[in-house]
């Protein structure tokens, strides 16, 4: 089974700091009402740059399926 990547946004934890929005190379994200939101999922290249710099674990890539022994 192939790995599928999923972009997860946890609005509960998001504090709206803009970091992911600004550092996303593909303008996938935007800010609305003080929370991040995904506006362009199709452009996402799953580079994890949002994940790596989100201070709040509020946005990240989840790998669905795939090798369990990872």
């Amino acid at each position, binding site marked *: 089974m192939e790995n599928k990547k999923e972009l*997860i946004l946890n609005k*509960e*934890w998001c*504090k*709206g*700091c*803009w*970091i992911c929005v*600004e*550092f996303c190379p593909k303008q996938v994200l935007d800010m609305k009402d003080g929370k991040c939101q995904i506006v362009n999922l199709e452009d996402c290249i799953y580079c*994890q740059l949002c*994940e*790596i*710099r*989100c*201070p*709040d*674990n*509020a946005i*990240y*890539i*989840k*790998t669905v399926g795939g090798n369990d022994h*990872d």
Partner: protein
Amino acid sequence: MDASQLIQKYYRLDKLPHIWCPGCGHGILLNSLVRAIDNLGLNKDEVVVVSGIGCSSRAPGYLDFNTLHTTHGRALAFATGIKHANPNLHVIVIMGDGDSFAIGGNHLIHACRRNIDITAIVFNNNIYGMTGGQYSPTTPYGDLAATAPYGNPDSPFDICQLAKGAGATYIARGTAYHARELDKLIERGIKNKGFSLIEGLSMCPTYYGRKNRKGSAVDMLKFFKDNCIDKRLVDNNPQLGEGKILIGELYKSTRPEYTESYKAIIDKLKE
């Protein structure tokens, strides 16, 4: 392990979101530590994370290890007791720049000197965050702070230089911007059999940023991006380093580790 698994495995989920302000760099650094620990495959039960008092020092509360939130400045002294009592534990200490180098400076240099196998990570945001933005021993000369309304008359430490002078055997600097690289630096720090100091440049948009017109958290991350350079690049081409902050592995050496030296005494007495 992907991020969602890491969060599940290493965070105390019911404590999140953490108390840090929007854009506080501490959360980014904390994630680096989690990834480093995961990469090393440490047994969670054998990891102890100790801190002092400060915004940064709230970090251990979010992690699912043995965690200890001590008194301001004293984390390394508590940690020394833990490590010496049970050298099998992996002892990691998280401190702010004030916690580690203002009130805690003495314990820091002595931990360096003893070369005790502890990994210290300083979340350096150049300010006392928790108490509302007073200058710390890493606040640049001339900068503004709640207790430096006319510009800081006090010069800062280069904490990596200081740790080197004190005898730490692994010293590295990373930033919240260069989070991936920081993972590796922390990983190597934990692996070093001896005292390791990792300075993580963090940002406090709420106080340091606002008072010094450094812009938003984003701007502060961009500052790291534009003003830091890996030491290896500079080693090859010193010109590149001019006016820049060196990051990466800054110093490494080998000396007897404290708990091993002590073990040798016990073993000898047993003979």
